[in-house]
């Protein structure tokens, strides 16, 4: 879903001000969709990092962004230009509630109904699995072990080090080198490190 060119010159805060100015009586649907499109990946990645669950992250995106739009429409956000702080704070609180098991998803969806379905988030980036497998095969065994322990078993450097009998610092060095080789193999090119 490409960026709406009408809003290219507007930063997130300006977009939020525009939504707040339109209010709930005559909502600016295009601006709302654009804000949703921009913020959805940020909230989803936050959810994935903290919840490690794709469905829970998707729920988080919908909940946080509907709440954000509702707050903007109602004029309850005093400084719309600080929209990003609001979204981050709401994401943090919602993740805490999700972890405690006190979060309920129904309330907002009841309010928004089918309108919520009109908002689209960009599809997450997906790599070619066969190519990635070939690239993984090209790593040496220690590099491959570090990469799969990190990303499959979801282990931090000190845990990986304990399993492979090497230091956490050494794990980070191997991981950095291995991921660099993987990205190069996958055609990501050399960006800034």
């Amino acid at each position, binding site marked *: 879903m490409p960026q709406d060119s009408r809003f290219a010159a507007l930063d997130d805060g300006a977009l939020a001000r525009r939504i707040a100015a339109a209010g709930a009586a005559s909502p600016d649907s295009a601006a709302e969709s654009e804000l949703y499109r921009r913020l959805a990946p940020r909230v989803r990645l936050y959810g*994935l990092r903290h919840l490690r669950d794709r469905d829970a992250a998707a729920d988080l995106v919908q909940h946080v962004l509907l709440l954000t739009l509702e707050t903007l429409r109602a004029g309850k956000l005093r400084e719309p230009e600080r929209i990003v702080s609001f979204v981050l704070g709401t994401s943090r609180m919602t993740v805490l509630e999700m972890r405690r098991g006190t979060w309920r998803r129904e309330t907002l969806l009841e309010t928004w109904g089918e309108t919520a379905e009109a908002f689209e988030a960009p599809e*997450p*980036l*997906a790599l070619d699995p066969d190519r990635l497998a070939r690239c*993984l095969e090209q790593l040496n065994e220690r590099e491959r*072990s570090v990469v799969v322990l*990190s*990303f499959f078993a979801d282990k931090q450097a000190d845990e990986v080090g304990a*399993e492979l009998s090497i230091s956490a610092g050494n794990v980070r060095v191997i991981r950095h080198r291995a991921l660099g080789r993987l990205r190069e193999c996958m055609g*990501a090119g050399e960006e800034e490190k």
Partner: protein
Amino acid sequence: MTCKNPIGFETLVACWLREMPENSETALEEHLFGCAHCTERLEGVAALASGVRAVVMDGKVTMVVSAPFLDAMKQAGLSLREYRVQPGGSVNCTIATDDDAVISRLQAPLTGVERIDLVRVRSGVESELRVADVPFNVDAGEVLVVPSAAWLKAMPAFTMQMRLIAVGKAGEKQIGEYTFNHSPS
């Protein structure tokens, strides 16, 4: 879409793996939420992570793994078939349609060993494949080999020999040879 102070790739990886101290992570999250450029780069790390996970789940790579990694595979719900083989031993083996992975447990005396190389040679294929410096478990006395399940499922009957070579300052010493007689299920 640019960023004046882009977050380094290694920092993004540490962020993804939640390795950062809390105060650094908070500052980083604030930056990420306000920055589409760095969010897109973190998306790249996330894609790599989910891609690696999918490749392992789908059995697309051959790996030598640690015991905790095997536990992680079980926790992920993978159905594992295991064969334990003593040095000099052989086993008739297969992989069923509903198996996600086959684990070859190569038993060996590993006390005092500094480094292990694994050599694999398949019947009908002249060249050996030597994998240097593989993970091993001294206490359990074993090396865990996980051949690509996708590859195994596509293979006709064949024999695979594996050898474990201890590598140290004094040189190399073979500490075990194992034969796997594979047949399709």
